[in-house]
C-alpha cells in the first residue's frame, strides 16, 4: 500500500467514517489513539467554554463524545470551530436547563467573537451569565475590520 493510501486509511480510522462510526479495527493502540483524539478535542473545547463545561460536569464528557462522532472539524482553527459547534448543540438542547443553555449561548458568542475579521454579535439573556447578580441584559461584540480591535458592550436591558 502506498504511503498516501495508508495515511488516508489511518485518518479515516482515527476520525470516524461518514456514518460517524470509528473504524479502528482491532488494534488497541489505534482505538486508544482515536479516544485520545476525542479527549484532546474535549480539553480544547473546554478551554473555550470553561463555564459550560464545568457546569455540565461529567455530562460534558458524554455529550462531547457524541458530538465528536458526528462533527469533524477542519482547518487550523478547528479547536475554536469545534467549541462553537458543540456550544450550538447545548444551546439547542431543550432537555437542558435554561441556565446551562444561557451559559452556552454566552460562551458561544464569546468564542465566535475571538475570530479574526469583521463581526457583529448581539445576544440577549434573561439571566446574564457574565454577572450572576444581574437580570436581563444584552451583550454586543463587534470588530469593524481585520485590523480593528474587538469591542464589547454590555447593556442593562434587552
Amino acid at each position, binding site marked *: 500500500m502506498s504511503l498516501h493510501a495508508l495515511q488516508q486509511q489511518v485518518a479515516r480510522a482515527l*476520525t470516524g467514517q461518514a456514518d460517524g462510526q470509528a473504524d479502528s479495527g482491532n488494534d488497541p493502540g489505534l482505538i486508544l*489513539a482515536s479516544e485520545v483524539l476525542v479527549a484532546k478535542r474535549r480539553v480544547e473545547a473546554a478551554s473555550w467554554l470553561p463555564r459550560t463545561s464545568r457546569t455540565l460536569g461529567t455530562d460534558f464528557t458524554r455529550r462531547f463524545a457524541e458530538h465528536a462522532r458526528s462533527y469533524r472539524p477542519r482547518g487550523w482553527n478547528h479547536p475554536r470551530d469545534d467549541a462553537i459547534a458543540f456550544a450550538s448543540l447545548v444551546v439547542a438542547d431543550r432537555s437542558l436547563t435554561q441556565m446551562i443553555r444561557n451559559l452556552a449561548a454566552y460562551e458561544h458568542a464569546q468564542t465566535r467573537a475571538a475570530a479574526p475579521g469583521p463581526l457583529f454579535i448581539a445576544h440577549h439573556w434573561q439571566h446574564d451569565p457574565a454577572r450572576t447578580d444581574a437580570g436581563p441584559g444584552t451583550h454586543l461584540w463587534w470588530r469593524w475590520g481585520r485590523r480593528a480591535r474587538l469591542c464589547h458592550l454590555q447593556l442593562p436591558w434587552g
Partner: protein
Amino acid sequence: MIAVAVIAVAAADVVAAVTELPFLGAGLGYRAPLRGGIFQHRHELPVLEIIADDYLDPTPEQLDELTLLAEHFIVLPHAIGLSLGSAEGLDHVYLERLANLIAHLKPPWWSEHISFTRAGGIDIGHLTPLPFTQEAVDTLAHNVATVRRVIRTPLILENSAATFTLPGEMDEAAFITAVVSSTQCGLLFDITNLHVNACNQGYDARAALDRLPLEHVVQLHFTGGHRRIDLEIDSHSHPTPEPVWTLLAEVCRRTPVRAAILERDQRLPPIGELLNEVRRAQQLMTMSTP
C-alpha cells in the same frame, strides 16, 4: 547537475546554521492562563515556545500579545499542523501564514513534527505517526525542501509520541536518523515521547539513545503524561516523571543542548511548580553547554 550542486550547497548551509544556533537555556511552553506568572518571573525564563497554529490568523489582540512576548523573551514558534509527513503535500496557505508569523518573530529557529495531521481531505487534529519506511523519509525530505524555499529560518524536527505503529521497514531510531540525514534538519528531541514510545513498544529508551543522532539535537521537550489501558499517553498533563529526568540528564551529558522547553497543556499547576521543573532542566543543561 547545476540543480544538484545548488541543493548540496543549501544542505551544507543548513548544517552550518544548526551548529551556529545560540544557546538559550530552559524555558516554558507559553499558555495564555500562565501569562501573569510568566511575566512575573520573566528573568528566570529566557525563552518561551508558542504554538504557531494559535497565531496563524491572528486578531489585533493576538498580535499585541505576540509583540509583548517578543519584547521580553526569545519566542520559538512550534508548528503542529503543517503535516510535513503528508504524502499529498503541504497546505500552501498554512505555509504562507506560518512564514508570516516567523518573519514577525524572527526566532533563531522554529520546529515541526515528524508526523502527519492531514490526509485525503481529513484534518486529523492530532499528530499521527508515520510508518518507518524509506517512502516516508523521502516524503518528509521533499516537503521540508518545499518549506525551505519559503522559510529560510532553520527548521528543527521533533520525534512524535504514538500509541500505535504502522507497518515499517526499520525501527524508530533508524527512521529518525534517516530523516535527520535526509532533511539535514536539527532535532527537537522530545524526551517524554522517547519514554512513551519505549514503554508502549517495549524497547529500552536508554539503549535507543546510543542509536539516535544526538549530535543533531538542538532543543529538548519534556513533560509528563498519564497511563491508560497499559499504554502511556503523551497528554502533557502531569509533572515530568523521574525516568524522563534520567533520560534528559543523559542526553545533556552526551551532547550540547541549546534549549529545553517544558510542555504543559493540561491540569496547569501554579507557576512555581513549573518553574521548579524549568530550573531543574537548566541545571542539567549547564552540564551540556560546551
